[in-house]
């Protein structure tokens, strides 16, 4: 018997053979597929957000229509980035579709890790021009679309209208940060445990840095100047960060240094915070009476500003095809379905109009049912997204495209490290100056080692 001869051999010496022999059979069994389009299986890596869970739920519709089965790998945001980056950078090719954001898209496009979608997107009735312009810009590299937006978001200020009324306060349509700080002081109720405002403090460049960077922009600060000289200790940047840290320490929620989107969402929906400056998608969950006590009591204002006209960020969870995928056509079929007008209609009809993925297509905002059910926040969301200038969100020109992040590969690491220092300042473990001094040195290091400056 051949197998027996082999197994004697591996005992004596070659261990590599062991794993190979033992494992070969199931490995082959797993690697099927690939034939002709019918009965293909595509694997998609997604984040565990509610909109993504909806798509998982509805994907059976797609599967029965297209004879392609879809496997989902659902991971938390950070984990997803780790996995997908590792997969693509090492050429493992486990995924046919990856969920990425506006940050990754231009970088990965430059590395040729993901496929250009222009050819696909111009075909059939996909209506690529319906995609909101700032979102489309952010997902393009050298004027070519590399990822299709599943949903887009900006940031705005969500507040409890009833609490403001009770206190005899009014929210300006376009508040400044100073006004917000004053309101937060008024609304901060020690006894009832209601915080004036909820702001993110959780380390992670996608967490605390998102709102903070919009504030840095609108205060006139920046991370780098046009020649990649780090500006994190400049007067404006310091003022902005000091403002943020003071605000959240004085009138923010307890445990601010560990609050991210989720924690703030919980706090607001339980009535434990009166205002919340965060992603526009937050509104969809806040207005869901099954999840939130605050449903129907919320008001929405544009992102507060200081020196600039507009203060919001821009992000879009988007679907892209890794160049390592062997089932690109099937992958596009799924992407075009999941980011189509028809899908939006399907979600509205099957799951309810407040659960429609927002911020991707202009046509969404013309659907009467959507206007009816989600009008409260739909208009402000659209306005917020359309107001973003991804090329120059702050007062100064910047050598990258993006609002709440620096679009260079090193930013994942740099941002994470800086966010840890900021978070420690929010926790009161160091001063803002100390945090920014360290941040500045990290930023200088990065500009130098990445070959951007000088």
């Amino acid at each position, binding site marked *: 018997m051949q197998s027996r001869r082999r197994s004697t051999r591996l005992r004596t010496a070659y261990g590599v053979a062991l794993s190979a022999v033992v494992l070969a059979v199931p490995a082959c069994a797993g690697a099927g597929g690939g034939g002709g389009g019918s009965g293909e299986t595509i694997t998609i890596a997604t984040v565990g957000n509610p909109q993504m869970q909806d798509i998982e739920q509805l994907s059976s519709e797609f599967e029965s229509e297209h004879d392609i089965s879809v496997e989902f790998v659902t991971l938390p945001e950070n984990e997803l980035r780790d996995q997908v980056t590792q997969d693509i950078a090492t050429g493992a090719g486990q995924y046919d579709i990856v969920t990425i954001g506006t940050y990754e898209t231009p970088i990965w496009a430059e590395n040729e890790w993901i496929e250009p979608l222009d050819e696909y997107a111009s075909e059939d009735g996909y209506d690529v021009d319906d995609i909101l312009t700032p979102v489309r810009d952010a997902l393009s590299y050298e004027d070519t679309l590399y990822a299709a937006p599943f949903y887009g978001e900006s940031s705005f200020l969500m507040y409890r209208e009833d609490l403001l009324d009770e206190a005899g306060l009014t929210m300006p349509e376009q508040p400044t940060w100073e006004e917000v700080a004053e309101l937060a002081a008024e609304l901060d109720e020690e006894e009832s445990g209601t915080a004036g405002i909820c702001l993110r403090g959780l380390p992670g460049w996608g967490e605390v840095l998102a709102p903070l960077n919009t504030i840095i922009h609108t205060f006139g600060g920046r991370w780098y100047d046009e020649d990649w000289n780090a500006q994190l200790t400049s007067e404006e940047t310091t003022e902005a960060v000091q403002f943020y840290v003071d605000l959240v320490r004085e009138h923010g929620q307890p445990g601010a240094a560990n609050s991210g989107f989720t924690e703030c969402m919980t706090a607001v929906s339980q009535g434990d915070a009166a205002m919340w400056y965060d992603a526009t998608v937050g509104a969809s969950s806040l207005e869901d009476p099954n999840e939130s006590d605050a449903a129907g009591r919320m008001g929405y204002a544009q992102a507060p500003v200081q020196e600039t006209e507009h203060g919001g960020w821009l992000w879009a969870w988007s679907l892209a095809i890794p160049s390592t995928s062997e089932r690109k056509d099937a992958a596009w079929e799924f992407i075009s379905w999941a980011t189509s007008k028809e899908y939006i209609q399907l979600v509205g009809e099957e799951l309810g109009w407040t659960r429609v993925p927002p911020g991707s297509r202009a046509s969404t905002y013309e659907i009467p049912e959507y206007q009816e059910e989600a009008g409260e926040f739909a208009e402000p969301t659209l306005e917020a997204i359309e107001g973003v200038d991804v090329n120059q969100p702050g007062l100064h020109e910047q050598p990258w495209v993006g609002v709440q992040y620096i679009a260079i590969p090193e930013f994942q690491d740099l941002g*994470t490290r800086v966010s840890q220092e900021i978070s420690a300042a*929010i926790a009161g473990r160091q001063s803002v100056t100390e945090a920014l001094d360290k941040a500045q040195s990290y930023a200088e290091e990065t500009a130098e080692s990445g070959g951007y400056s000088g």
Partner: protein
Amino acid sequence: MSAPPVVDGRAGGAAAPARSTTPTAVERLKRRIPLLPALVLTIVLTQVPLLGTVYYSFHSRNLLRGDAIEFVWFANYADILGDEHFRTAVLNTVVLTASTVTLSIALGVALAVLLDKAFLGRSVVRTLLITPFLVMPAVAALLWKHAMFDPVYGLLNWFLSLVGVGPIDWISELPMFSIVLMMTWQWTPFMMLIVLAGLQSQSPEVLEAAKVDGARAFATFRRITLPHLRRFIELGILLGSIFIVQTFDAIFLITQGGPGQATMNLPYFIYQRTFRAFEVGESAAAGVIVVAGTIVIAIFALRVILNLFREEG
């Protein structure tokens, strides 16, 4: 030296190489055969990747940039050793491991002594007590983060509020303490089980004799039980250290090493260098340093503390 005074009738029932005729070369080979599959598999799955890590550690490579791989001698090692965060991570790892092991072994001994006594529902209490050890560490971390430590909804603060203390923002104000608290909760049962096994292997006759001699309970414990337990405690410390040094789930899921660098331990440091920065060379160098360090400590721990390889025969 510290041979416990109690030796059961059948002391040292060892069957080790009684037949120590000098083996021939063929026989030596034959004896080696049972060992080989395990040895080879272990080498393939640990040493081969480790060689890969060593290889990377001498090269400059960032996965996020398409740069060519470049041989850089010891530059990565210099970077890592000069990195203040690496030194913080080493220190944090030592603090985390030492505090958790100390606390859980102390609690473990106390609980084992308690459980060694007869009382109503003893087996139920034992069942309750071992549960934290059985809970998946990732689950334990999420559970503590969201249900225990949360400053608003967490139960720790609710309990404290009953006695008028708090609220405490556990993870921000007391990050290391919080992690140690959670890890101690998880590892005390493990220590308890080991010590309990030791207690139950004590000869009742000697304890009885001590009692007849009029020794007080505490004196008996200190002079007879504790020396007997020594090796069990040492084993607990050794095994506990091996596992706790590698703590990853708790840091990853609860604090992400923060706030600042307050709970950054070595596994998470390397993880961050690998998966946030994708600085493969630097993280590999850190990995090699850590492996070398643990081997030094392992030699110390195994040979000195446990006397595992005491000269025999």
